């Protein structure tokens, strides 16, 4: 019964957090900019050298999802966490029988729901534009083109959106972890962005360590590769949508989802360890 009550409390906090986040001007502005950018990909295509039109639009859309999604994930999570602390509403909430873990989990889920809406909207807009351009392309080529199947695999666009959402989950959990010991908004945002860069590029260090001789340096680089999650794993845009021969196996997608889930839970629990000791 208490577990059910706990879930209810988490759901309520998540729902309120989500509504609060959706009403934020920052979210709406970023969403509009992202949609406008994805929609304008056909304009930017004139600057392209050698990539196919549909491939370019896909790359552009995936880029927008990654870039604006990462910004939103970090800033929204930070704002939603610190709003409660700065407005003292966290005090009221935690004075009631709400555990700090439930508070953190609710905040995380609210932010993660926001990212789900963002990822879904961008993915839908991208799919719409791809569909429009694909239709135009087929109309232009007419019967001269022999097709083995559709030009675009729309399911893959959503697979990419889903995996980015999983990655945003890790990023939001990392942001919560940083926020749990930080005193200011700005510090949390900056540190989280640095962590994002490290997570995105740590694979290069790992590749380098495999070529190193045994020693302290190798040990340190190996440690770095283990401490930070590998975000490059989610950078799978090149293997999706068009390349049928190299299509990403379902087991890999599932592995990535599980990997993301484990790290998300781990960072929320670590945030809880810090937040438990924190005086609000």
């Amino acid at each position: 019964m208490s577990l059910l009550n706990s879930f209810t409390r988490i759901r309520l906090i998540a729902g309120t957090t989500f509504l609060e986040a959706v009403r934020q001007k920052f979210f709406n502005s970023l969403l509009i900019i992202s949609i406008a950018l994805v929609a304008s990909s056909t304009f930017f295509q004139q600057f392209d050298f050698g990539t196919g039109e549909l491939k370019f639009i896909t790359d552009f859309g995936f880029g927008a999802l990654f870039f604006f999604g990462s910004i939103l994930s970090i800033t929204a999570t930070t704002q939603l966490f610190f709003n409660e602390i700065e407005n003292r509403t966290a005090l009221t909430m935690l004075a009631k029988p709400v555990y700090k873990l439930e508070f953190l989990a609710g905040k995380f889920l609210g932010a993660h729901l926001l990212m789900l809406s963002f990822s879904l909207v961008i993915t839908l807009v991208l799919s719409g534009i791809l569909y429009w351009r694909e239709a135009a392309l087929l109309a232009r080529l007419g019967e001269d083109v022999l097709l083995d199947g559709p030009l675009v695999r729309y399911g893959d666009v959503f697979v990419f959106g889903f995996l980015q959402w999983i990655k945003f989950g890790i990023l939001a959990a990392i942001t919560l972890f940083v926020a749990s010991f930080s005193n200011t908004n700005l510090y949390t945002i900056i540190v989280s962005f640095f962590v994002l860069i490290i997570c995105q590029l740590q694979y290069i260090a790992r590749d380098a360590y495999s070529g190193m001789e045994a020693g302290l340096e190798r040990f340190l680089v190996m440690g770095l590769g283990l401490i930070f999650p590998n975000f490059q794993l989610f950078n799978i845009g090149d293997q999706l949508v068009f390349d049928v021969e190299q299509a990403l196996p379902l087991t890999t997608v599932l592995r990535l989802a599980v990997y993301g889930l484990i790290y998300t839970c781990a960072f929320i629990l670590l945030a809880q360890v810090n937040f438990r000791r924190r005086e609000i």
Partner: protein
Amino acid sequence: MSVLQHPLIVRLSRVLTILLILLLLGLLTRPIEAPAWKVVKAGQPEMNLEAIEGALGQGLVVGVLGGFRAILADFLWIRTNTIWERRDRVKLDAMVRLVTTLDPRPDFFWINGSRMIAYDVPNWRIREEGGYDAVPKVRQQAIDYDQAQQAFDLLDEALEFYPDKAKLYLEKGQIYLNRLKDDARAAEWFLAASQQADAPYYAARIYAELLRKQGLDTEAYSYLKDLHRELPNVPYAQKGIILERIRELENALKIPFWQRFQPAVEPMLEEPRGAPAFDAPEPHDHAGHAH
């Protein structure tokens, strides 16, 4: 208060505990991550430390992180052209490397980058040293070889991505032929190009011509006869030209009439659908570069 209870020690121990937990987590997730990473990495372009430094130096954090790599590479290519117009060879080399690292997929970057390095930069360097009349021929050749080698290195990198792309083999052949005037090496690359699935028909014809240029008429004759037999009777295959050259070689080699090549009579076929624009000029040729 014992030393272990000192706030600094307590804080340090907390940090170390968290790092240890994350380290263990990294080890625990390895069985999930490693197979997934193997699959994902196989489909990703390589990004080395040098390229990242270059990209970060240009303020291209987003490109390095994975977003908008294609469009950033496109804009950088436009900038590369501005640098090319300014004849800044040091920056040009760095920019070509950066563009091809950011987005190695379009062959346009590799081919045009190598053309700039192999054909244009030697001219600039010779002019910097006083011009074609003042610089000794030996020095001019050394510059040509130096620049050609840099272009070959770039094309070799491209071949790692596209080992079957005839255009890249052709490009190496063209540099040997047009810049280094090395017919023997050029012939090797034209032959390699002609053996790729997407090879244009002219690659094999040029190879035969290069054999003739080297005085290897017998080899050229034998090769052209085989080529004529193997090629489909489509307009782009230009079998008429091949036959003309076979006849020229038969005259040069004084082949007796009864031993001369007899082409099979076959109807002219239509160009297969979806066939590459064989022998048609490339749509993306960089202005100012001779083929």
